[in-house]
């Protein structure tokens, strides 16, 4: 019996293991869609509408088609013979939406024709040579005006541009009649309140701005009747399903690959027209085709996020007890419903319970079409909007009552013994313990010290404010009942000859670091070195099944599937090990993985190396009775609920009295995402989220003029947060595990964007409170702040 004398392997879960994906990413060795080059590949360019709203009168493609090297020029109407309207992933009524407009254009950037040409430059020249004539229609830009009688309408059958209307409140909606049940309790709560705050707030439109724009390569192989699509997507399996459906193929005829994907932030969940068009045109021209989005196209045509207008009323007692909430929300969803468009704003109302006991709510939501780029998920997807509205309103109540913003929140927290906690909207929070998180944030920030610092600065004539927010959000999407594509995740774990491990995951990381965290989990599970593990993802021909990455689900759902598959593989390894230990009577149940060996628990002298057991599994002579050779196992994990991480953010800002420029001096984030596999990666996720959340509060906004022309279609006008704009973040955490998955991990991808936005705006309002300011719309533009300093009131 051999005892391998390899080194003791430290446990990796919970360690700050550096990301294994980074060396190739930062050395330019990664393969993105644009790096894929196939023999005979042709290039696509889209002719796009330069008006916001109009009927296509004519399209003259003759000059383009005559250019040498142009293979095909095809209009939307012609393409419609090959491609039907695009599917969506929500149950809401939706107008037909063709990949390329057939008769009418509804936003600047909407495609009207496509060129296939030998190279990308020629394709673009040819697209420019296409002449389109429109009968222009009035642009619908303001969502409130859009709902008025007499407004121009975008879609037939959608009166007053209303896409979705929903209502719930009081004791909820009667499921039989779909009518609100008696919600007089809401009116009563407001009538009896000591204080009511009412505020109109805009959670503005944002451009997700992934570092890598979108791109697709499609290769339809005639004869084989097999389609391969490489795409910068967050969910290759959903891409496969939908492209197959629209192409009239079975899923067995389609392989979808997400190679290296340079960020998504939600905007690469949707399956876009360009992906369907590439697939269809590859079949039509019998050649592989490529399309790579440029940055202008990314601003104009990749889905935008947010754009919710809220009319928020919050009622409270003099002691700070919150007694009721009314929210009337108008979502400007842009020109069409794409994959999840209509669902995102529905999450906003659901999450507006926040961390509070909220006795009664009334929630009205209207989703409105306008002549703008369609909206869909953007980091946080519905939750930042809801938490912004709520946390601003709670702050306003605190200010009315002269209460400390921390104390009003403490007073209304759902107490730890009420979990699982059912909200007014019907969600069930899995676990939570809010007060220790608040206390830790106050301690890390030195809250009393901050207030004193603020007051001292004010005494010197400086304009300084502090702000606080407390959020809860929803992660780990599933379960399948709430995710139209299915809410499970899949994983495969294969122990290879030599004791190396290959695992697959249906989660499709595009910056999350799962190649590291998942390897950490397997390293601990099998007690083998990290280097002995490869995590594969993003290719439907390698990863048998999967849903993808969104809603901070990779760890909570994908990780759980991985551990389940690893458990099955481990069991089989132990069976083979026991069979190898011929000189002893060993039962697999007595075996454990320890430092590269499989050994009898507590008796390291009775062991086999992991490698020799693996070798035996593939040359099983003799084959143990009842066993199949090899170790390759898979598992699906279906969560029974979502997870609900939470956290407290605190910030301090200073405003320049002369110019209105706001500087973020401090940001403290104490997040609770349950158990943490890799604190370095969790901190990285929080950092990125904070930058984007602060970006929304201070810098970013997609702006259209009254004709529906985008004003912010480049980085010269769209203000992205930069490292120099941000302070050194102070991070800490509390740990409240979830019972929903065996890891106890909740998810952290979006937390930073959810807590920081209201936190920073609350600080800015605090800074300007001495000028009589009660609310400031985002972003905190210098001119806006300057006007408030000089004129007071609201913006």
């Amino acid at each position, binding site marked *: 019996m051999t005892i391998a004398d390899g080194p003791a392997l430290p446990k990796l879960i919970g360690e700050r293991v550096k990301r294994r994906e980074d060396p190739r990413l930062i050395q330019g060795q990664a393969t993105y869609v644009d790096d894929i080059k196939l023999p005979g590949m042709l290039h696509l360019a889209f002719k796009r509408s330069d008006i916001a709203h109009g009927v296509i009168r004519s399209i003259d493609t003759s000059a383009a088609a005559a250019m040498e090297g142009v293979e095909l020029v095809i209009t939307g109407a012609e393409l419609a013979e090959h491609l039907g309207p695009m599917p969506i992933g929500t149950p809401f009524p939706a107008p037909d939406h063709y990949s390329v407009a057939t008769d009418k254009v509804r936003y600047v950037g909407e495609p009207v024709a496509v060129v296939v040409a030998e190279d990308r430059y020629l394709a673009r020249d040819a697209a420019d040579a296409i002449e389109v004539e429109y009968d222009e229609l009035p642009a619908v830009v303001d969502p409130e005006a859009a709902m008025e009688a007499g407004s121009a309408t975008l879609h037939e059958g959608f009166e007053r541009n209303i896409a979705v209307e929903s209502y719930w409140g009081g004791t909820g909606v009667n499921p039989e009649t779909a009518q609100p049940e008696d919600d007089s309790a809401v009116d009563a709560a407001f009538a009896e309140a000591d204080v009511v705050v009412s505020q109109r707030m805009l959670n503005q439109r944002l451009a997700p701005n992934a570092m890598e724009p979108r791109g697709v390569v499609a290769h339809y192989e005639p004869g084989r009747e097999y389609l391969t699509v490489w795409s910068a997507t967050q969910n290759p399996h959903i891409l496969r399903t939908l492209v197959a459906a629209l192409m009239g193929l079975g899923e067995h005829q389609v392989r979808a690959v997400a190679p290296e994907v340079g960020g998504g932030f939600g905007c690469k969940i949707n399956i876009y027209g360009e992906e369907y068009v590439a697939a269809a045109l590859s079949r039509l021209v019998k050649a592989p085709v490529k399309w790579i989005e*440029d940055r202008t196209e990314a601003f104009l045509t990749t889905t935008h996020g947010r754009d919710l207008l809220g009319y928020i009323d919050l009622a409270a007692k003099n002691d700070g007890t919150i007694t009721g909430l009314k929210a009337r929300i108008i979502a400007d969803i842009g020109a069409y419903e794409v994959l999840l468009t209509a669902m995102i704003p529905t999450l906003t109302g659901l999450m507006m319970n926040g961390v509070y006991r909220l006795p009664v709510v009334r929630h009205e939501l209207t989703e409105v079409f306008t002549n703008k780029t369609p909206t869909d998920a953007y980091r946080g997807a519905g939750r930042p909007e809801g938490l912004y509205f709520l946390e601003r309103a709670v702050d306003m109540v605190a200010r009315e009552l002269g209460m400390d913003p921390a104390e009003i929140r403490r007073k209304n927290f759902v107490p730890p013994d009420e979990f699982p906690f059912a909200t007014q909207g019907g969600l069930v929070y899995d676990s939570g313990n809010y007060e220790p998180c608040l206390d830790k944030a106050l301690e890390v920030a030195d809250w009393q010290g901050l207030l004193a610092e603020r007051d001292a600065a004010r005494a010197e004539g400086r304009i300084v404010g502090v702000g606080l927010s407390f959020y809860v959000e929803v992660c780990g999407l599933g379960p399948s009942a709430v995710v139209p594509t299915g809410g499970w995740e899949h994983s495969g774990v294969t122990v290879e000859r030599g004791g190396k491990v290959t695992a697959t995951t249906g989660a499709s990381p595009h910056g999350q670091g799962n190649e590291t965290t998942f390897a950490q989990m397997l390293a601990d599970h099998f007690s083998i070195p990290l280097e002995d593990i490869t995590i594969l993802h993003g290719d439907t021909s390698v990863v048998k099944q999967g849903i993808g990455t969104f809603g901070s689900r990779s760890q909570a759902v994908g990780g759980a599937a991985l551990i389940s598959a690893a458990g099955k593989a481990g069991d089989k390894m132990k069976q083979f090990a026991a069979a190898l230990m011929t000189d002893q009577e060993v039962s697999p149940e007595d075996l454990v993985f320890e430092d590269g060996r499989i050994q009898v628990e507590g008796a390291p002298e009775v062991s086999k190396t992991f490698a020799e057991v693996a070798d035996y599994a593939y040359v099983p002579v003799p084959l143990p009775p009842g066993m199949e050779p090899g170790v390759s196992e898979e598992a699906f994990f279906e969560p029974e609920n979502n997870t609900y991480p939470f956290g407290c953010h605190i910030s301090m800002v200073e405003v320049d009295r002369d110019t209105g420029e706001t500087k973020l001096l401090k940001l403290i984030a104490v997040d609770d995402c349950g158990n943490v596999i890799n604190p370095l990666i969790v901190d990285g996720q929080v950092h990125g989220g904070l930058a984007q959340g602060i970006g929304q509060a201070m810098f970013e906004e997609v702006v259209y003029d009254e004709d529906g022309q985008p004003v912010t279609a480049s980085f010269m*006008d769209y*203000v992205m947060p930069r490292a120099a704009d941000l302070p050194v973040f102070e991070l800490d955490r509390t740990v409240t595990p979830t019972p929903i998955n065996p890891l106890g991990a909740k998810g952290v991808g979006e937390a930073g964007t959810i807590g920081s936005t209201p936190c920073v705006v609350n600080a800015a309002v605090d800074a300007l409170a001495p000028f009589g300011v009660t609310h400031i719309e985002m972003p905190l533009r210098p001119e806006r702040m300057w006007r408030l300093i000089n004129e007071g009131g609201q913006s």
Partner: protein
Amino acid sequence: MIPTAFEYRRAGSVAEALSLLQEGGPEAKLLAGGHSLIPMMKQRLAEPGLLIDIGGLDELRGIQEDGGEIAIGAAMTHAEIAASDVLRAQAPIVAETAANIGDAQVRNRGTIGGSLAHADPGADLPAVMVALDATIALLGPNGERKVQAEDFFQDILTVDLAEDEIVTGVCFQACRSAAYAKLEQRASKFALVGVAAALSLDGGTCSSARVAVTGASSHAQRLSGVEGALAGASLPGGAADAASGAGDALDFVNEDLHGSEEYRRAMTAVFARRAIEAAAGRS
């Protein structure tokens, strides 16, 4: 970046660049750092048929000081200008302004010649050159021509430069008591409003001043009212007063998403004051 097709020629000398410019006619464009021209080509707002690269020409390089006069070659990058010991010692306003242009990539590529020739309404260096009363040297088929900076900048993206001329450099008198202050447009970092002030100081009193603004209006221009108010003013105390009317005196003021006319006028006064205070604090 998907521009229209163009021919690219790297000029071996200024003379060659000039003859290529002549041959190319209106289709030809000089390329220096490319950080104004290429963004426009990328958007197909500019579609030159011929690019003549002058970026590496030795004749257009160098920063010299001679008897109190400083000369900068047109192809010097913002980064080189920011790092110049001569400038840091004798005209710190120029080095500091260059150090705050855009970001590191922009400063490593963009040149002073390109910045002056392009004359973006929000470009920083034009205001500094006007305040320093710099002379801009141009070379064309008929030989050399010198233009004072305040006459060179004429309107939005419009300068006194013929299609067949090249900016070869700028020169100005050394001046320590000058400073530039800008309000950044937060996306591009161009000046929403930028003011350069060059002062002649006699102890705490300003004997004369040149003050110029960029960003606020169509092109860099002098703020003569402020200059007048500064003559004889005691500084830094008198800066605010002298600057107070700066914005109101402008004929035309830009207006966009990042700042209304009213805001830009107000900021012109604020940044005039800041520039004057910084310049006065320098002597």
